[in-house]
């Protein structure tokens, strides 16, 4: 790539993971990275951006404009502007699916439902960050309780023959419920499917969905059985973008491009 060509960076500093994307002037993704956010968001954002730049074979000097988003959006040294993750997820999803959509984003620490009209304008959004229910934090807590590595949950849920339903809103109550099910001798894979079901139910209680549904977020990226289950529950297909964990960063990069002349 020659230095006169423009590239744009989007950095999404989430409470759990930091994501970075580099796009070229044709809106093509040429670099991307995901790392743990840790406790030093500024350092994480620099390191994540460096990794994405490495993948693109570029250095920071090539970046025409950068935009930050996410929980740590004000800790990104290179970004001149920031936008909330709501706007960036919406922008990133609309890039792939340019029609009226409802976006379900399930992240490590929060979840969202964002509704867009056919022109990509936001109609409404709901965000839950007051409670672990329906988020990755819920699954993390349960994987600890069940002593099953997080990355094994998806495979286990798929093996379930007869799902065990969990009724509680609260993570602590759910943990007690899970212990009770184990005591009753229920199959672990059936319990794990019940946990997935619980995540989806908590999210769907937040808002109604329009016809076309898109799912994004780190939890979706690592547990694609959640997508299949959601699709079965709402009885229609669910769309998933190319990099579901990176839609916020992609949206930020697209905004960086739009804002570069402003």
């Amino acid at each position, binding site marked *: 790539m020659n230095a006169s060509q423009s590239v744009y960076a989007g950095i999404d500093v989430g409470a759990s993971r930091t994501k970075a994307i580099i796009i070229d002037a044709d809106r093509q993704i040429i670099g991307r990275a995901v790392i743990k956010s840790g406790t030093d968001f500024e350092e994480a954002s620099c390191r994540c951006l460096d990794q994405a730049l490495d993948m693109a074979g570029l250095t920071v000097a090539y970046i025409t404009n950068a935009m930050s988003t996410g929980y740590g959006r*004000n800790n990104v040294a290179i970004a001149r502007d920031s936008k909330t*993750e*709501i*706007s960036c997820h919406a922008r990133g999803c609309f890039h792939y699916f340019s029609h009226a959509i409802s976006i379900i984003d399930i992240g490590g620490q929060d979840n969202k439902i964002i509704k867009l009209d056919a022109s990509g304008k936001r109609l409404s959004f709901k965000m839950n960050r*007051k409670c672990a229910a329906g988020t990755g934090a819920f699954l993390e807590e349960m994987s600890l309780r069940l002593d099953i590595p997080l990355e094994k949950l998806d495979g286990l849920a798929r093996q379930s023959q007869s799902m065990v339903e969990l009724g509680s809103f609260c993570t602590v109550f759910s943990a007690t419920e899970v212990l009770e099910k184990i005591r009753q001798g229920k199959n672990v894979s059936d319990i794990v499917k019940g946990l997935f079901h619980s995540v989806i139910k908590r999210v769907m209680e937040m808002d109604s969905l329009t016809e076309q549904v898109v799912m994004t977020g780190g939890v979706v990226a690592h547990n694609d059985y959640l997508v299949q289950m959601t699709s079965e529950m709402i009885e229609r297909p669910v769309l998933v973008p190319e990099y579901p964990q990176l839609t916020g960063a992609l949206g930020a990069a697209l905004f960086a491009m739009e804002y570069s002349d402003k």
Partner: protein
Amino acid sequence: MAEEKKVARKKIEATVQMNRYMSDYFYELNEADKSRSRKIAWCTSVGPAEILRAMGFLIHFPENHGAMLGATRMATDMIPVANASGYSPEICSYLTADVGAYMKGITPLSRAYPGIDRVPRPDVLVYNTNQCRDVQDWFAWYAAEFKVPLLGIHTHRGVKDVGDDHVASIASQMKALIPPLEAISGNKFDIDKLNHVLALSKECSGLWKKVLDTASAKPSPLTFFDGTIHMGPAVVLRGTQTAVDYYKQLLAELETRIHDRVAAVEPERFRLYWDGMPMWGRLRDHSELFSRAGVNVLASTYCNSWIFSAFDPEDPFNSMARAYTELFIVRADDAKEDYIRRMIEFFKVDGIIYHDAKTCPNNSNCRYGMPQRLEALTGIPSLTINGDLNDLRLVSDEQTKTNVEAFIEQLEER
């Protein structure tokens, strides 16, 4: 780096005068408490203050004290004390903060007013359940503590249209307060005094309404955050000449601002309406959060709650009964919905913020589908933020900030 700029809302000059009046009010109560020279009544904020004042009582308003505990951020340390004695963290956090502070022997009055070391002791407690049931339990706790009489008015709630039967019932309950209040105060009830107090209350209410209505000007000279501070006299001094004088001064200042096109938030990019309680411990943060984005939250259901248009000195009991029942908080959802719709139009707002206050369902109007219905009706978008009036354990600043910023971004897209 994406930087946050600080923009303060424009200061209101009359605040200095208001602070003087409020200070005089608290010192007068304190003096009466210490010398026992005047009888003291505790009253709910939309309770029958006019009757008490006409009968010679000085009045302490526990909700005002609760809000002070919230605004000074003392409440969150007091609430657990009440929780531990059996008052749930789920109930009114004015109640739990106020009772907790009493149990700890602490009051924010001491910080603001040197020499005042406690809330004034009551000779009687008088509540009106028009706002909620919590006030009855709250006052009952103090009645037992101070061994003083507890009197109350039980208002119909969820009222669609206020009818003559509602009015008759409340008016007769108000009249029934007179004999015990005569016995406690040692003063004979004098209808002329009540009419005089009511006339002053009506004038105060009318002026307060005009003050709040100035926010319909573009740009608005006033914010909701100003309103939460300047409503002090309308709550604790209504029925006095002092409150009337104060609102005349404040109104004149705001009208000058309108004339000179002075905006409370400059630039005024968007205008929002606030429904629900303020988060007292976060007033300044919220004011800055909105103003630095060029957004003026300029009107609210909450500040409008001290407008009593029906007061009529010619017909005191019936008109008080009507005014205290016509309040927003007493009404059915369709009446509430209609009210907010009119406010949206009158104040020309671009969006609504609903505060879902965990411990005050009575002032949280987003729990029965109202935001969705109003949005469908008016096309005006809304945002619900979770929090509480006093209990900061229930508030996530980061969540509020992201939600508000995302909502403003949504308004920018329109």
